[in-house]
């Protein structure tokens, strides 16, 4: 789909900011509940409204969604008309919870693992979390849930990548994805400790490329996609590409724990409305903030700062706008993880010298 959908295909619901862990890289800044988090009734009413609009898919995020006592009440309502993807740390998954998730027919359960051993994983996520997560995954698999692992690559775990993949294989999950840190929430506070430098990113990309060759489609990663891009020849007939990397504002949108409507979970500053006070469908169609956000996708990638002279403008879709905004405060800044952009290189030079 290239045009803006009449209503979103997928809506991300951040059920709560509450979390039982306190991960260094948490871009949602999960931990304590925020003021005015939505009640059970708020979520149920909203989910029923989304069903009337024929929103197809709900992705449940947090915080840790399973920490809510009403989690299954909300998900049961969603499953009457929609599919559900669940993002969880799995530490709260007991055998009984795994069975309930299985019975509800959750499409995919995405579990976070950031290390192949307790020493590495728990350095980021807190003591004792590794064992609980592994047990949670085992329970989910025992009850035939579809499980994928999501791993965030940081300075703490980047030398453990292949071991993490081997662990995922041993566990028997469907696949594993490696993402970079989103520079927002606690990831911003703990940046020096966790966000790899561009030089370390090169090592990470090389390692993931190698692991990707070995394990094939079992391993997915933004880093591998970026390597493919960097290794691709420019398209001599392609002209300059438009900015087009993601589906935020085109097919997807997110609701925060307090009901704010935002283009994506990593752009919680760009509040387009609140489901308690605004009509969601009208916000989707008429929000000036969303209109401005969508107008980005009409721009050529050469409109992005530092991208004008890049040899890949015919094939590069311009990277993540949320990351650009979080790092540089502008939606037309470069994706901070592009290793070719001169603005990023200058930033890294300063970082190294500090």
């Amino acid at each position: 789909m290239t045009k803006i959908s009449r209503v979103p295909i997928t809506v991300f619901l951040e059920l709560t900011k509450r979390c039982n862990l306190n991960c260094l890289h948490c871009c949602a800044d999960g931990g304590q509940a925020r003021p005015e988090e939505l009640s059970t009734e708020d979520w149920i009413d909203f989910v029923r409204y989304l069903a009337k609009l024929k929103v197809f898919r709900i992705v449940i995020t947090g915080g840790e969604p399973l920490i809510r006592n009403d989690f299954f009440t909300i998900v049961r309502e969603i499953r009457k008309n929609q599919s559900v993807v669940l993002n969880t740390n799995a530490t709260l998954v007991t055998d009984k919870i795994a069975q309930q998730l299985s019975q509800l027919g959750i499409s995919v359960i995405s579990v976070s693992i950031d290390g192949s051993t307790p020493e590495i994983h728990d350095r980021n996520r807190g003591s004792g979390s590794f064992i609980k997560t592994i047990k949670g995954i085992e329970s989910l698999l025992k009850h035939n849930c579809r499980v994928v692992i999501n791993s965030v690559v940081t300075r703490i775990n980047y030398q453990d990548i292949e071991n993490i993949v081997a662990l995922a294989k041993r566990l028997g999950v469907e696949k594993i994805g490696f993402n970079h840190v989103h520079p927002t929430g606690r990831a911003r506070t703990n940046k020096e400790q966790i966000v790899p430098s561009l030089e370390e990113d090169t090592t990470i990309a090389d390692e993931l490329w190698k692991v990707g060759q070995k394990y094939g489609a079992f391993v997915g990663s933004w880093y591998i996609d970026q390597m493919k891009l960097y290794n691709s020849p420019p398209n001599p007939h392609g002209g300059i590409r438009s900015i087009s990397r993601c589906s935020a504002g085109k097919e997807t949108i997110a609701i925060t724990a307090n009901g704010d409507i935002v283009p994506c979970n990593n752009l919680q500053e760009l509040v387009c409305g609140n489901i308690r006070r605004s009509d969601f469908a009208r916000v989707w169609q008429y929000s000036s903030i969303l209109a401005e956000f969508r107008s980005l996708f009409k721009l050529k990638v050469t409109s992005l700062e530092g991208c004008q002279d890049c040899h890949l403008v015919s094939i590069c879709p311009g990277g993540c706008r949320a990351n650009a905004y979080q790092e540089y405060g502008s939606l037309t800044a470069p994706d901070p993880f592009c290793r070719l952009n001169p603005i990023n290189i200058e930033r890294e030079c300063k970082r190294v010298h500090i």
Partner: protein
Amino acid sequence: MARGYSIHPSIITREEEEGTLLFNKDTDDIKLLNQVGFLIWKHCDGAHTIDQIVETLAIQYPEVPMDTLRSDVKSFLEILLSRKLLVPAEVRIEND
């Protein structure tokens, strides 16, 4: 009785500018139908046989040979069936 198709009970449909979206809420599968696809889809109601669907299309597209139409419709329906967007149905025909 003759063979036809019904819409899978887990399917939600939605009109968009680019066509009709079919979504299976249990398999998480989405398919976009164009105009021709939607015309076939509309007749997957448990009341039309495959031959009747082909005949409907033949009226809309008289320039296309019947054999081609029949083969294309059957292939299309098999794809929708394999993706759990349709279920087989026995259609009562008038001579039954």
